């Protein structure tokens, strides 16, 4: 339902969106600047993209970040989905409140605290049982999985809550085992949430500077850590070029994912409506024929 609102509100909305996009646009524009001075326009050039692709430090870090992102997002999807299923489908069980609290707490925890506490855990564990020996990509993966599984749990839980449980109940009534019901019925229905949960976890991992800085060791330098050390020394046109590439990839990815999910959702709603409409047609419904 839409309602007429005052014109000044549209101006405000436009100005607010401009505020959100001006910094990103300025990054993109000045990535094509030929001068080393990032903020003074000297002519169009793609030289910074060339030097970016020859910067091994940035490329190695980007590769490591993508690997860490993939593994931690995959782990987060599995664990986060388990939390969501337990909270949304298992009814009351002992320790439900604690699980709910534990799984949402990482969302509000300041990053410096999560980072510090995990590092102290890894040091204490190394002293006590010798594992993990030193900090590496492994410790970053554990840290990222821990905070991003909370986001996955929230996304999947809201999808499960909005889902009609009667299909699952019907399958259970017909004698399917709970595990089978989950994999054959629930999983396909929540797959859009799993995809967005994965993308969210991957983005959070790829973006994290603070927690990675705490739990990483020598040899495991992620992309945000490299960017941070460069940015601290001042503006760098290579970073602008990198930012432009990331904006382009993420922008394209989000738009494509949005369109695909929208289409899948529409198809699902159409199918459901057809299935419901089918009830009215006696020929399509063997039960009413009998």
């Amino acid at each position, binding site marked *: 339902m*839409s309602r007429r609102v005052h014109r000044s*509100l549209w101006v405000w909305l436009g100005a607010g969106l401009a505020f*959100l996009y001006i910094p990103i646009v300025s990054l993109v524009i000045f990535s094509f600047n030929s001068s080393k001075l990032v903020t003074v326009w000297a002519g169009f050039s793609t030289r910074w993209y060339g030097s970016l692709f020859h910067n091994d430090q940035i490329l190695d870090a980007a590769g490591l970040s993508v690997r860490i992102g993939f*593994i931690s997002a995959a782990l987060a999807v599995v664990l986060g989905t388990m939390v969501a*299923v337990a909270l949304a489908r*298992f009814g009351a069980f002992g320790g439900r409140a604690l699980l709910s609290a534990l799984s949402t707490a990482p969302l*509000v925890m*300041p990053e410096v605290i999560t980072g510090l506490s995990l590092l102290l855990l890894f040091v204490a564990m190394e002293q006590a049982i010798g594992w993990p*020996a030193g900090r590496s990509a492994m410790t970053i993966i554990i840290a990222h999985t821990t905070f991003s599984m909370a986001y996955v749990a929230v996304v999947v839980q809201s999808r499960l809550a909005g889902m009609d449980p009667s299909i699952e109940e019907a399958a259970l009534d017909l004698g399917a085992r709970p595990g089978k019901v989950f994999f054959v019925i629930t999983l396909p229905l929540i797959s859009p949430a799993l995809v967005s949960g994965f993308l969210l976890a991957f983005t959070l991992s790829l973006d994290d500077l603070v927690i990675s800085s705490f739990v990483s060791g020598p040899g495991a330098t992620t992309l945000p850590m490299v960017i941070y050390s460069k940015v601290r020394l001042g503006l760098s046109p290579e970073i602008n070029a990198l930012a432009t590439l990331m904006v382009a990839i993420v922008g394209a990815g989000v738009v494509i994912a*949005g369109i695909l999910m929208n289409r899948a959702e529409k198809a699902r709603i159409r199918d459901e409506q057809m299935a419901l409409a089918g009830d009215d047609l006696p020929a399509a419904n063997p039960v009413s024929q009998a």
Partner: protein
Amino acid sequence: MSRGSQLPLGDRLAAGPRGLTSTLAQLPPLRLLLNALARLPLSGHHAVIGLPYLWLGLFFLVPFVIVLKISFADQLIAQPPYSSLVDLATEGYISLKLNIGNYTFLGSDPLYFNAYLKSVEIAFCSALICLVIGYPMAYAMARSDPAWRGVLLMLVVLPFWTSFLLRVYAWIGLLNNNGIINNVLIGLGLIQEPIVMMRTNFAVYVGIVYSYLPFMILPLYSTLEKMDLTLLEAAEDLGCRPLKAFFTITLPLSMPGVIAGFSLVFIPALGEFVIPDLLGGTETLMIGKVLWDEFFSNRAWPIASAVAIAMLSLVVVIMAVQKMLAKHAEASQ
């Protein structure tokens, strides 16, 4: 897992998930755990609840106990740089030594208290500014043509998907003395000398409001969109002026969104490190940056832990207040 295992990570991935689990299963603690689990009479339900429980317990709950423990330890010049609390004394007694010196130190040095207060002030004001900017935006979005809502929503969310660090970096280019904003203003002849904006509290506010504005808009939008507009029509029919209708109907009904948005900005802004570090100057002391410096520059692990505990208690108090307010807002509807 040995130090050398950093490199073969890719190889192990290439070996596929079975390769990864077999390497994981070879680790002594995990192998013991898996063997123990295999012997228990477990159903699928237990595994679905138990696995995330184990993970969160080990990697989220236990770490806080350790932080709490180390906040009571002495600073040592050793690896790791803190003392152990429990000692096996010579007569076979166990002695527990709690050092509250770290906390009294935090209380006695005004640096920490000022940073604490300044963080609360900056986070609170930023959340308020986000509310003032974000509410009209969310309102306009929620009352727009339904066909447009998806696009507008995507426009608000999209910046969130691009790197936070790079978006903060972009503001350095905009706010610098020889940055884009000053260049434009000088070019237009509006100012002669550049305005100093970088490394001030102003830059920190801009950075926080900019980064967290979407977190304010999203919950506001979802409550405003769900609102029953017939209430407003009824008020109008009865002669209520639009502005009065807004303050007596729309605003109270959107309170849950206001509370959610406010805490989604306030809490992360409180512990923010990147923004005060990159945009702030010496006048901007925020508690997240203090913790970072204690840890990385001074290697003062016990002090950093005490700062973390102080910060955590604040977050817990804020969460409790937020829960109370949310309950109150819900009850009054």
